[in-house]
């Protein structure tokens, strides 16, 4: 570890000291699955999202996720607020004004008032979901083994094992998983593990009318996503970028990645998420020194005087 402020400790440096040095392997194999199917995932292309929320509804219906609040938030068309124990797909709505020099005919552009002298407006819509990280913090810290890696490389909570300790909630760098008040357990997207087992497409991707949510083997999705970014760049949408597609990022790449049209934080996503278990060895080292100091202090206190 360097001696600078924590911001200077880049994920890149920390990685070499982390306990998860074999991150290059595919996560299902690392978890002990032999002869497993290819890693499956989501590619959410936000440039074609129309904000219909069919994914939110389909997810709730299929997974029998309970209702979690019917309220008006004032956050554009978003009354869902964010992912949580009972929200496994969340469509974010961002209304932006005065976006300079954008081509109104290009995809994803839903402009309102485009006339001379008036503010241009653009919608950003994005269906957020659990990232199914290659190095998943929730899974790392879970003390019961309730969180597990499936043969598809996804991350799933086994509800009959979870004791509701809540560690995963604070460990997730995306703020995805949460504890449900009504049953005390942690819940999140399963990437429709039950449907996958039957060779079906997850409910959200199946319901998406614009193929903004695409499901498939992760390799194929990466290929498709790169082509899509190229296409958008060719028509002048230089702001199009992939999020979560880089295996060298702080989580070893995501199993559910995105094409975004603005910075991640605009959509409520962390710009540089890191799985903190990478720093675990360094943390235990300091803890060891501190514990030894405490033992020495106790002895010193007793030999240091007459009373």
């Amino acid at each position, binding site marked *: 570890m360097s001696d600078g*402020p*924590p*911001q*200077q400790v*880049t994920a890149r440096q920390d990685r070499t000291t982390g*306990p998860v040095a074999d991150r290059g392997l595919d996560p299902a194999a690392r978890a002990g699955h032999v002869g497993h199917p290819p890693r499956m995932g989501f590619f959410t292309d936000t440039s074609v999202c129309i904000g219909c929320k069919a994914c939110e509804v389909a997810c709730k219906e299929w997974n029998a996720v309970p209702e979690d609040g019917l309220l008006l938030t004032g956050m554009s068309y*978003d009354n869902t607020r*964010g992912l949580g124990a009972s929200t496994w797909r969340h469509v*974010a709505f961002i209304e932006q*004004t*005065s*976006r300079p020099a954008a081509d109104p005919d290009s995809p994803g552009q839903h402009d309102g008032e485009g006339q001379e002298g008036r503010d241009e407006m653009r919608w950003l819509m994005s269906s957020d979901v659990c990232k199914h990280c290659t190095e998943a913090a929730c899974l*790392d*810290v879970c*003390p*019961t083994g*309730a969180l597990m890696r499936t043969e598809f490389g996804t991350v799933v909570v086994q509800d009959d*094992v*979870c*004791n*509701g*300790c*809540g560690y995963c*909630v*604070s*460990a*997730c760098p995306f*703020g995805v*998983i949460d504890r*449900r008040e009504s049953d*005390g357990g942690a819940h999140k997207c399963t990437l429709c593990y039950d449907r996958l087992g039957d060779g079906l497409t997850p409910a959200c991707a199946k319901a998406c009318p614009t193929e903004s949510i695409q499901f498939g083997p992760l390799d194929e999705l990466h290929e498709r996503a790169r082509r899509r970014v190229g296409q958008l760049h060719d028509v002048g949408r230089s702001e199009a970028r992939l999020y979560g597609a880089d295996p060298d990022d702080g989580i070893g790449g995501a199993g559910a990645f995105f094409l975004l049209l603005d*910075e991640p*934080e*605009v*959509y*409520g996503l*962390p*710009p*540089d*998420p890191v799985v*903190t278990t990478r*720093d675990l060895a*360094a*943390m*235990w080292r*300091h803890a060891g020194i*501190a514990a*030894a*100091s*405490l*033992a020495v*202090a*106790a002895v*010193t*206190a*007793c030999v*240091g*005087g*007459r*009373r």
Partner: protein
Amino acid sequence: MKARTGRRGGDEQMVPEAEFTSYHGQPVLKETVWGPAIPSYLFLGGLAGASSALAAAAQLSGRPQLARTAKAGAAGAISVSMGALTYDLGRPARFVNMLRVFKVTSPMSIGTWLLSAYTPLAWAAAASAATRKLPRAGLAATVTAAALGPSVAVYTSVLLADTAVPAWHDARRELPYLFVGSAATAAGGLGLLAVGPDGAGPAVRLATLGAATELTAERLLDRRLGPVAEAYRTGRSGALMRASRILAAGGTAGALLGRRNRAASVLSGAALLAGSALTRFGIFEAGRASVRDPRYTVGPQRERLRQRGQPTPRSQTA
């Protein structure tokens, strides 16, 4: 949607004010589901662990009264600590599920196994000392509990640091020292409170070392953390941290100056215990504050990207 990275205390400013963006001001991270039982569990675990170390050292240096008190304190504190941990679970009846696996990547898993080994030893040491039965087994339990005690006091610092919570993860280097310092302060305080001025010399010395470590670690944390240190300085967490510093410093001064006075010793011991507890509540609250405000999540990550050569995003909104 655009917000200025807010008011921070005058000349304490460490990075230039920068624009930061969030999704309708919503936090990026999930607020911890842990309640006040968790900082209590942190405090009591520290008190128990450091008390066990003090108990063994006191017994081996011929101070049976202090040793007996410290053992009773350790046994009581760890019992309540385990109770608090279990109480905070969403499904307390499934506590035992933590014993179905041993995971090196989970500080909570390691801690549970550590507590499972330590707690019966702390009970045995205290029971033997109180009943004066089985002295040899009691000594063995005392020494083994003392060997595990410092780990019991420190593992919770790694538990907090191994989260995405900015104020906890960024403080990963200082937290272990802060935790053992706070633990030593508490154990010293309890010894002083229970034994009184005569025979509490080791307790006072341990508390002094503890308070000095605690205050130094806090100072280093404040200097190294940059903008995230604000979470420890402002609001509820700031008030708790300030109160804990005053109690630790005041308690230490009282313990050293009021050596011959019973009332001063009791007061100082209580102040040291309270100071240690408030430290844990302060750290806990700082973590919560750093999650609630997306600035603490987005700001340092943006800065990290900037240092890796990625340009700061240009504004796309008015």
